[in-house]
């Protein structure tokens, strides 16, 4: 099977990630719930993972790294924990439902929402964001990379815009963490939300957020923390303020190994490899008759995603043919990014997404190109 659905999850993980999870499952206790070796080994590896993530995102304090199950949980915590009725928030049409749905819910409770429209090729203009700022604006939230088109969003100017206007800047780094360099200080990010199972190459069920020191996110959860047992309220100190209940220690041990792998391999090398494969595929399919490609390919810096349709074929039919006739795994239909589909005019047809990992080979890409060519001929 040729797996080209890495934007959904990177199926192939480094062997050391798998080994670390297995090892943790046979030796790890509950972090912070005792002073036995098993419990301490969990506490130590979790703390070390905080340090590694803090380093990776250019943070100033590992205690500001909070573990969650995924980006969706992180984004819910950031948006619901920072926005109030009457506040105004700005976002974009590129967003995933993990941003949009919490925002729609908040909107129904009195938060004011502006969604910046798309320009050509699924991009947006930062000037539209600037124009949308009012005296009530509290936050800008946007993705670092579209999960549908692979368009990369340059965060630095947006962070500067937010900073100049005294706004919070929340980022969805689901498609970029572990692959693109992120520096929360340089990019002036207040809350960075990430998942562990995509570009970071860790297990599903891992993820988190980095919260700038001084930014106070209201906790959505309260519960056991291993500290301050007789206090009736959740401890105020980070990261415990935003972590209640047993953490996914086994998964975090895997994420720890994944971070080691990323440091050894180098995220610049991973990105270079993924992008090379993506461009190889793009060059191979872009001139095929009946093939429509979505997204901005005028810039070299983009996520390793190529999304297309063949004629007016249902994208699910194309994806199914790729699987059954060529053993190629892709994703079809809607991609949890409803506004992006609206902007691209693919609400009815959906789209077929090919997304690459540094583990994919040139031969796999060539097989996929040939498959698209043959399917397009049948149109």
């Amino acid at each position: 099977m040729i797996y080209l659905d890495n934007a959904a999850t990177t199926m192939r993980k480094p062997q050391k990630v798998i080994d670390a999870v297995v090892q943790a499952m046979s030796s790890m206790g509950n972090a912070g719930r005792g002073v036995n070796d098993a419990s301490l080994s969990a506490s130590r590896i979790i703390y070390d993972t905080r340090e590694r993530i803090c380093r990776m995102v250019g943070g100033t304090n590992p205690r500001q790294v909070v573990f969650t199950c995924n980006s969706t949980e992180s984004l819910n915590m950031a948006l619901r924990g920072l926005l109030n009725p009457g506040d105004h928030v700005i976002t974009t049409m590129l967003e995933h439902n993990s941003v949009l749905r919490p925002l729609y819910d908040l909107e129904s409770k009195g938060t004011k929402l502006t969604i910046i429209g798309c320009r050509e090729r699924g991009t947006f203009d930062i000037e539209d964001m600037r124009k949308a700022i009012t005296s009530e604006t509290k936050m800008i939230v946007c993705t670092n990379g579209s999960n549908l088109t692979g368009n990369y969003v340059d965060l630095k100017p947006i962070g500067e815009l937010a900073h100049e206007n005294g706004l919070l800047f929340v980022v969805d780094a689901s498609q970029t963490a572990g692959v693109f360099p992120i520096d929360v200080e340089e990019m002036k990010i207040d809350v960075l939300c990430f998942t562990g199972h995509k570009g970071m190459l860790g297990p599903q069920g891992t993820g988190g957020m980095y919260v700038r020191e001084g930014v106070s996110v209201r906790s959505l959860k309260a519960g056991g923390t291993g500290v301050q047992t007789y206090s009736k309220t959740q401890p105020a100190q980070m990261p415990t303020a935003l972590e209640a209940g047993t953490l996914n220690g086994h998964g975090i041990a895997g994420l720890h190994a994944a971070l080691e792998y990323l440091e050894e391999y180098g995220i610049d090398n991973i990105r270079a490899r993924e992008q090379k494969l993506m461009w190889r595929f793009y060059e191979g399919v872009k001139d095929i008759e009946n093939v429509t490609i979505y997204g901005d390919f005028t810039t070299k810096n983009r996520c390793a995603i190529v999304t297309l349709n063949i004629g007016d074929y249902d994208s699910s039919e194309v994806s199914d043919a790729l699987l059954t006739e060529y053993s190629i795994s892709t994703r079809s239909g809607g991609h949890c990014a409803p506004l992006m589909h609206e902007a691209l005019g693919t609400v009815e047809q959906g789209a077929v997404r090919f997304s690459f990992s540094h583990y994919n080979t040139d031969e796999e890409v060539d097989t996929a190109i040939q498959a698209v060519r043959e399917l397009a001929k049948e149109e």
Partner: protein
Amino acid sequence: MRKKELKLVVTFHTTADAMAMEKACKEYQVPGRIIPVPRAISAGCGLSWCADLGDREQIVDMMRKAGIEEEEMHECMV
């Protein structure tokens, strides 16, 4: 039960702080170990750092350098 000695016990707000303390002590070669918070200090739960009284100055200095904030610092029988 073993005989108790008067020790320096540092408590923390979070497990993350306790882990930062253990790591920093290892790095700076400051002796001591993680113990459960003694009941004499707090009836809650959590981890604390237990060290010899004579190392207090070195520990305070190291915590300042490493940016580790204690909840409280006690002398108690452990």
